[in-house]
């Protein structure tokens, strides 16, 4: 037997839906060998997740599968498509495990994280429960969850998006499987943690010869980790080859387009020369112009969002835990403020507070000049009519029982437009427009959220946020699940709209490339505190805080060669931190 761990041959997956059959995967062949990392990239909705789900036989009941998916169990290859469920159980987790794309809903809400991780251990190993639990804590630690002992006793809803994603990764690593299928394992992670996870995966591959099927849209990650790349489009693999070859000399038109769309990574750090991608996006100049104007300080513009010394607490096991400490932020009309920071640093929490979903224990949130906390009833509604929201969890924030069209039209239904109710036809027209803007096919409005891919759902959420003409947009990781080409287009839509409407925007993201490209100013959060803020260009080119520099250095570049350099630079920086803290680091 060769080293083949996974062999997919002529795989076809078709979904039966109300609106007819949806072919998701159309005859793909793929092989993953021991110790190899195969990256599956491609357009959002091209069938990456479906392919990875089929590896573990986890497709929903509405899927029809033909072809074969063989997994190597010891020396035998077993076809997942034909193996009955009760035998698959033995393979899952032990031979192959999976990291799911949407970590927010992937965890059981009523079970502690420790138990959920320990369960994976207990499924395949005969160890005492206590041992399994210890192992769970170790796993949580290895994926970079702070205070793993305490976190093990917490429930999923008490974690940030990135933390949950790491728990899901911990589960996948639990039994040291021969193959890990990781579906966008780092989408919700900030770059530093992402770098850590990538290091972890790399060491697994290197030491245990674990095979990795990595689905991702982040070309930087591909460049950093992958040996081979398969590019998917429209359910087919259009190009497959070694990483250097595909990334540097793409053969297929689609691959080229994809790479073209990669946003320019920010400078790695002040000490590292940034290797600019030769293909800078044309739109980026526009962004820079506007950045320039903001930097000039146009304080006459109306303040649409004003956080004044806001502190936010959560209550965990009866104790108050501070998530955000005395945060000051302002967003002016027409301004885009990027909020970046480590996973779990309180970005989403701050975002929720802006919308009045959390009441600050200190300080005040002024939305369009009014305190959200004090606004009630009609006043509150009128206030929120001018605010668009994108939630971090694209799946969870869509009502599973409503058609996508209804969800997108919901703000219209709530607020009408210009103080008037819209007719059904008007709504339908607006929904079409929005779907088109976020590059979703017509007809999508008649399907349900679960029938979409992760990236598609995220775009649905974005479409909903833009349905009205907001004066303020609070977007929590609005593009994390998008492949670069779609992301580029969506960002362009955002930018155009922004130019047209002049809304203010709080843009929460861990993707520094996007932040760099899009925002005028940036604020950096760490452990709930604002550590640095200023014009994006300034902060990114000359970070005052070591933390910021570290963040920047962690951004992987989409060029394998360049990425190797960046990685080394980052490691240097990290070790340098121990020796001599950068001047001006206020801790």
């Amino acid at each position, binding site marked *: 037997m060769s080293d083949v761990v996974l062999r997919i041959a002529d795989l076809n997956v078709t979904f039966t839906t109300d609106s007819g059959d949806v072919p998701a995967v159309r005859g793909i062949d793929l092989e993953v060998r021991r110790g190899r990392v195969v990256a599956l990239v491609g357009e959002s909705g091209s069938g990456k997740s479906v392919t990875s789900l089929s590896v573990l036989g986890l497709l929903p009941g509405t899927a029809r599968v033909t072809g074969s998916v063989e997994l190597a169990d010891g020396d035998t290859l077993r076809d997942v498509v034909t193996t009955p469920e*009760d035998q698959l159980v033995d393979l*899952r987790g032990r031979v192959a495990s999976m990291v799911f794309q949407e970590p927010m809903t992937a965890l059981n*809400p009523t079970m502690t994280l420790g138990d959920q991780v320990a*369960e994976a251990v207990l499924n395949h190993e005969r160890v005492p429960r206590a041992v399994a639990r210890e192992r769970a804590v170790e796993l949580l630690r290895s994926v970079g969850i702070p205070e793993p002992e305490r976190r093990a006793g917490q429930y999923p*809803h008490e974690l940030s998006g990135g933390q949950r994603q790491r728990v899901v990764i911990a589960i996948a690593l639990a039994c040291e499987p021969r193959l890990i299928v990781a579906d966008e394992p780092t989408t919700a992670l900030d770059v530093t943690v992402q770098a850590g996870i990538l290091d972890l995966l790399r060491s697994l591959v290197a030491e245990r010869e674990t095979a990795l099927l990595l689905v991702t849209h982040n070309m930087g990650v591909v460049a950093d980790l992958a040996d081979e790349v398969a590019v998917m489009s429209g359910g087919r693999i259009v190009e497959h080859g070694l990483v250097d070859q595909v990334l540097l000399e793409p053969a297929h038109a689609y691959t080229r387009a994809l790479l073209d769309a990669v946003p320019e990574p920010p400078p790695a750090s002040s000490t590292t020369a940034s290797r600019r991608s030769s293909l800078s996006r044309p739109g980026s100049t526009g962004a820079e112009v506007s950045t320039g104007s903001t930097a000039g300080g146009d304080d006459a513009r109306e303040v649409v969002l004003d956080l004044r010394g806001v502190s936010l*607490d959560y209550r965990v096991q*009866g*104790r108050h835990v501070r998530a955000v400490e005395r945060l000051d932020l302002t967003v002016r009309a027409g301004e885009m403020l990027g909020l970046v920071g480590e996973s779990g640093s309180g970005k989403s929490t701050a975002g929720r507070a802006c919308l009045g979903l959390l009441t600050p*224990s200190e300080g005040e949130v002024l939305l369009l000049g009014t305190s959200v906390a004090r606004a009630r009833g009609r006043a509150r509604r009128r206030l929120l009519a001018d605010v668009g929201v994108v939630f971090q969890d694209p799946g969870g924030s869509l009502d599973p029982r409503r058609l996508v069209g209804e969800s997108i039209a919901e703000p219209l239904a709530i607020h009408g437009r210009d103080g008037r109710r819209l007719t059904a036809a008007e709504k339908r027209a607006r929904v079409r427009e929005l779907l088109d803007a976020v590059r979703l096919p017509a007809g999508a409005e008649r399907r349900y959220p679960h029938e979409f891919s992760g990236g598609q759902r995220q775009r649905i959420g974005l479409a909903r946020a833009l349905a009205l003409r907001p004066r303020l947009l609070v977007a929590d990781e609005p593009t994390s699940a998008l492949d670069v080409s779609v992301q580029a287009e969506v960002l362009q839509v955002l930018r155009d709209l922004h130019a047209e409407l002049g809304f203010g925007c709080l843009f929460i993201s861990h993707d520094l490339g996007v932040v760099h490209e899009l925002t005028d100013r940036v604020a950096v959060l760490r452990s709930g505190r604002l550590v640095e803020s200023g014009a994006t260009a300034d902060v990114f080119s000359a970070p005052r805080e070591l933390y910021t520099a570290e963040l920047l250095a962690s951004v992987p570049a989409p060029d394998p060669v360049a990425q190797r350099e960046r990685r080394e630079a980052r490691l240097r920086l990290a070790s340098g931190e121990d020796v001599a803290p950068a001047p001006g680091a206020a801790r």
Partner: protein
Amino acid sequence: MTTAIPAQSGAVEAGVAAPPPVRAARGGFGRFLIRRVLQSLVVILVVSVIVFALLHALPGGPARGVLGQQASPEQIAAFEAANGLDQPVVLQYLSFLGRSLTGDLGDSYLLNQSVSDAIALRLPKTLLLTGLSLVVAVLIAVPAGVYQAVRRNRAVDYWLSTLAIVAYSTPTFFLGMLLILLLSQTAGLFPAAAPQGTGIAEVLAQPAALVLPVLTGAVPIVATFSRYMRSATLDNLGEDYVRTARAKGTAYRRVVLRHVLRNSLTPVVAMLGYYLPVMFGGALVVEQLFNYPGMGLLFWSAAQSSDFPVLLGCVLVISVATVVGSLVADLVQALLDPRTRGGLR
């Protein structure tokens, strides 16, 4: 609206100035309990006022019912004077309240017993029988409902559904009759009467006689609970976490048992909270059919014969059971689903 923002998720309680960490925990729950107990007292008080008012709104008063159609006006007047019924309703209520607070529920008009004796005699028996039915029912219904959900839209599911519906739409009385006819009078397997005798021990000593009444009481509950269980399980089987659990290599059975079951118990827990007052109130039909005098019968005959003190006593017992049931259901749900713990504050 002056309440907290509802959309605040479960355990999140932002906006409260942070008290010392550890005391906050106990204080939070302790305060919740105190508040609930106070609310419960109000409920019980209100219920007693309503029932009292309704009783006195009934035309004619209790005398006719107690003394019968042959009673003379003098006797009726004497009866009313003796029982304080000639006083203003408010005074009557206050004196009832005063006595209840000292634990004296008064004497039955008809039973030649004090109300507390009458209740003390029947309550344990009723609790035993209905409690057994409930336990049996839950033991059958929960697995049955889960099984049906797992086998959704297969023949078994249809058959069990139909069975549950048939069982539910059969009047309990008829069901009991059928069981007696088949299992007792034709097959001779079990006695047709529930265990006779006063004490719990005596009742428990006759397990064969318990079978039919417990079964009769359990069948409708099985039907109810299994339907709710099926539905809730179906909801949860569609959740993403099920897929995650399966991906870990957890066998489907275990996924259902360890993950889905717990998350699907919400309606059953809510129903269980509701069954507590039912247990205290007794199951009239079973008691009537199986010659097992309990709370149901006590209440029913008191209602029929205008035995006000007994009626009020029973209602008090039932209201206490209601508020306790509702509290327990809330606590259990919070225990099962950490997201809802915000409600406990």
